[in-house]
């Protein structure tokens, strides 16, 4: 008796916790509302399954607990019932899967007009690169990395000379424009993670990965690393600032290009050797 | 990954056919009694446990080599991949291993005919050729190292050492079993059923290792490049 009651309380408690919990998903700030919707749908379907199964179990515990003289029914199987349960479960799974796959299809199809930017992870901070006037990012390779070229841009590639380098870990993005984030790591695995935009993706050394999103809310967001990258992992933070197109342009023009950064470095070296 | 796909299709087909024959579709509660359901056709002796164990071990080893092959093809995509030159001695080694396999098959045939002397000779030839194969493999390693194709200088070299090394270790294990069998046969005056099984197990294992070696050799000399391309095309 009391056991059935406890099981019911577990179910009721879980539901109450869900309703009353102050720990909810962060307010969404990107176009990936569909992800939240799919998750909501998953919650409804699976939650109903959980409640149904455990309540049924609790009823059985209450109704069929041992009493002197009781004898269990003999029923090896009931193929019809099992087939029905199988069909219902399959339908439920399809209900979860179909929208999930549709949204995944969108997730991996980058809009043609998306602005390409690059996020580079290194133990333990974030750097960014935006295309310059030519709207193209130059090629890069780990081999080119040295103290004056932290992101390893190819010095010979003309496309890369006007690329804007952002090494302060603060990325600005214009509101409402789709962004394709190219991800590059120069040491270990990292993961570009901003909870508010829902999307995330690993940075894998040796290859360039990507994902895309459209910022839909002006604000300041924290960039975390979501792939364990050594003892400094939790300290690997960056800032993503979503602002109006005009503010973004103003910020963009203030950034240093690759060419400039090399010149200023060379100048500093010269000064250093002169002293 | 396609390698693993093929491997699993094979393994699961065997497993599911076997299960079906064992009556997994039946309703056990409807059947009572003992003999009625003692599923072993009269006269057909069950295979010895060691043989079943070997079959399962071959599945495990097959899985291991398939995974290595899958890794070989996946890693081989990278632009830095540069296969080392293949030492000519490998052709001779292939011949040795094939000869070893043939010798053990001959030993099995002789054992079934209860010809003790021939079994002894065939086993010794088999062991000797396998031993020379191992020496030949070491020779090939030495040659590559002398030419400065180190494991650390290119992943293709590393795979060469890894694949041949894992294969050689399996063969060393086989040689231990073969030595024990040879020892038993040496002291035997006539061939018992048990000895025949021993010889048979060695022969099966040798054929398996020869088969693996042939596929591996094809991969190393690049005959399997086409397969890698097909894999990539299937996946994209």
């Amino acid at each position, binding site marked *: 008796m009391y056991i059935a009651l406890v099981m019911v309380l577990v179910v009721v408690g879980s539901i109450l916790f869900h309703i009353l919990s102050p720990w909810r998903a962060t307010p969404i700030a990107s176009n990936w509302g569909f992800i939240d919707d799919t998750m909501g749908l998953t919650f409804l379907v699976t939650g109903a399954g959980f409640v149904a199964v455990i309540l049924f179990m609790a009823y059985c515990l209450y109704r069929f607990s041992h009493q002197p003289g009781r004898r269990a029914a003999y029923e090896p199987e009931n193929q019809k019932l099992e087939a029905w349960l199988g069909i219902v479960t399959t339908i439920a799974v399809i209900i979860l899967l179909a929208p999930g796959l549709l949204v995944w299809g969108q997730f991996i199809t980058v809009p043609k007009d998306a602005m390409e930017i690059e996020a580079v992870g290194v133990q333990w901070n974030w750097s960014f690169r935006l295309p310059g006037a030519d709207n193209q990012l130059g090629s890069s390779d780990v081999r080119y990395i040295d103290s004056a070229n932290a992101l390893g841009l190819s010095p010979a590639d003309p496309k890369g000379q006007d690329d804007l380098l952002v090494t302060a870990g603060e990325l600005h993005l214009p509101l409402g424009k789709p962004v394709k984030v190219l991800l590059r790591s120069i040491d270990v695995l990292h993961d570009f993670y901003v909870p508010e935009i829902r999307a995330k993706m690993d940075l894998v050394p040796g290859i360039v990965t990507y994902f895309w999103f459209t910022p839909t809310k002006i604000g300041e967001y924290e960039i975390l690393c979501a792939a364990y990258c050594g003892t400094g992992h939790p300290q690997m933070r960056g800032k993503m600032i979503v602002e109006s197109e005009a503010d973004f342009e103003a910020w963009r023009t203030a950034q240093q290009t690759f060419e400039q950064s090399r010149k200023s470095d060379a100048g500093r070296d010269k000064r250093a050797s002169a002293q | 990954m396609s390698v693993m796909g093929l491997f699993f299709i094979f393994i699961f087909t065997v497993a599911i056919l076997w299960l079906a024959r064992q009556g997994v579709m039946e309703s056990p509660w409807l*059947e009572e009694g003992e003999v009625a359901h003692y599923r072993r056709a009269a006269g057909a002796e069950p295979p010895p446990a060691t043989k079943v164990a070997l079959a399962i071990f071959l599945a495990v080893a097959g899985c291991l080599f398939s995974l290595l092959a899958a890794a070989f093809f996946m890693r081989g995509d990278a632009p830095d991949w540069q296969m080392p030159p293949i030492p000519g001695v490998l052709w001779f080694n292939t011949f040795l291993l094939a000869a070893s396999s043939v010798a053990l098959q001959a030993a099995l045939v002789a054992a079934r005919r209860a010809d003790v002397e021939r079994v002894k000779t065939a086993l010794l030839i088999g062991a000797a050729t396998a031993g020379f194969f191992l020496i030949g493999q070491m020779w090939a390693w030495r040659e590559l190292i002398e030419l400065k194709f180190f494991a650390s200088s290119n992943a293709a070299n590393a795979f060469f050492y890894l694949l041949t090394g894992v294969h050689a270790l399996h063969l060393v294990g086989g040689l231990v079993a073969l030595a024990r069998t040879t020892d038993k046969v040496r002291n035997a005056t006539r061939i018992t059923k048990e000895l025949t099984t021993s010889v048979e197990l060695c022969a099966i294992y040798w054929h398996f290792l020869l088969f693996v070696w042939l596929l591996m050799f094809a991969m190393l000399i690049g005959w399997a490049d086409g397969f890698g391309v097909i894999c990539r095309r299937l996946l994209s």
Partner: protein
Amino acid sequence: MTDASVPQNVAPPPAEVEDVELYHAHSWITKYVFCQDAKVIAIQYAGTAITVGILALVLSWVIRLQLAFPGAIPFIDAQVYYQSVTMHGMIMVVYMLTAIFLGGFGNYLIPLMVGARDMVFPYVNMLSYWVYLIATLVLVASYFFPGGPTGAGWTLYPPQSILTGTPGHEWGIILMLASLILFIIGFTMGGLNYVVTVLQARTRGMTLMRMPLTVWGIFAAAVMALLAFPGLFVACVMLLLDRTLGTSFFVPSIVELGEHKEYVGGSPILFQHLFWFFGHPEVYIVALPAFGIVSDLISVHARKNIFGYRMMVWAIIAIGVLSMVVWGHHMYVSGMDPWFGFFFAVTTLAIAVPTALKVYNWVLTLWHADIHFTTPMLFALGFLVTFVNGGITGLYLGNVIVDVPLSATLFVVAHFHMVMGIAPVLVIFGAIYHWYPKITGRMMDERLGKIHFWITFLGAYAIFFPMHYLGVLGMPRRFYEMGETAFVPASATTLNIFITITALAVGFAQSIFFYNLFKSLKYGAPAGGNPWRAASLEWQTPETPPGHGNWGKQLPVVYRWPYGYSVPGAPEDYLPQNAPPVRGERSP
């Protein structure tokens, strides 16, 4: 249909299965230390697994204390924290759960349940244990080497795991890989034994479809483990070569802390494929034996045959096959070709169907049953709740797009602890309470058992259920400290403190279990041969605890399936598998 050719009420013919040449122990050492009897090996396996399991439990307290009170505990720094996370995960998954289900329960129960005298290859079986023991010792030894154990996370992802930014990169990682390689070699010896014993040593009349689901679960898990562990083996060998010889299997050209490394062209994702090729089946290697055992516990203590036995067997097979092709769902955001996402999402959610059918059949077994609320039954019920809860959160993570925001958050941690941590551990406890009388001849204390159950079940649920919500909030896993983070409210810390206190309490409550375990050894009520009045073969041994060779002079002959409970017309509410059919008995 009773076979007409068998005369009724006549002593059964002698068993046809040839008697194995039995190993005889000559001294104390060969009887208890280097022993080849599967039952002793089972105890050795379980004892070792539980011992390292306790170490891993203590490590989980280190993790929890740090998460609730960051910086307040003097001896916990980032290094210790990541080392604890790594060792806790690896020990629990591989050295505890895998070893106890297959090495412990597999060794004890397979021969008894299929009516064999011992494992088919007892010597190999003994070797298997000793190699396992050496593997655990190598692992634990890493605490005594410079740099300590590796802190690479239990997934050991390169390049991180072999670089200097990771604790234990000097020796810890090498010992970890060596230990895993040893474990796999040892396991392969054991696994061959389990599979061949089930295939070859079943007694007369024991068809595959007359095996208890426990044997089915362990058998399927052993087959899967044999096919999955080579993935880990290959990954470990190649990673070890990358670390020691400087090969470039997994590590591309990188610049680590300003220094160009020698590596070139390696693929970190290749390692992830190999690792999860093992890693996902591993979940079911742990789950399938638990499924099997829980089926038997429910059936025995509800005095009712397991509902839909055939479906249960087919589901085990289907899960076993499918689980080999779902590994990519751990890699949805790993940067692998995103088109794989479609394939792995479909296979992953497909596996939910046979799993759900198993759950339905467990609860349907309770319908019109005669439920005895013994301690093993309570643990089985606890398993049902935690498994269903953990199973449905798997539907979130398997559905590729829903996984994107949740991956690498505490939601994942909560999910896998619920489904492959708490659920199987509850089954292990239930199974120990259930089979303890057979192993020792004495009952465990029911009152203490129930107290242990309620604390463990409700406590564990209270630990991991709320944790999901921290994951939904977006709190990432593997964070040594959250620090100042805008989206994390202060109340999250309160919840973390609650979880930690509960975890400590539940951990300490396990001492009730150990007290019960050792006290009952001497003071437990004598159990008799079959205290639960169970039908399966292991309860029908002539001696309790079963002697060497299990069956006395003659092997048992099996006449029916192991779920003959409450059969109409039968005098008792159970029909042992080896009781000869009598006239008048119902034969539908």
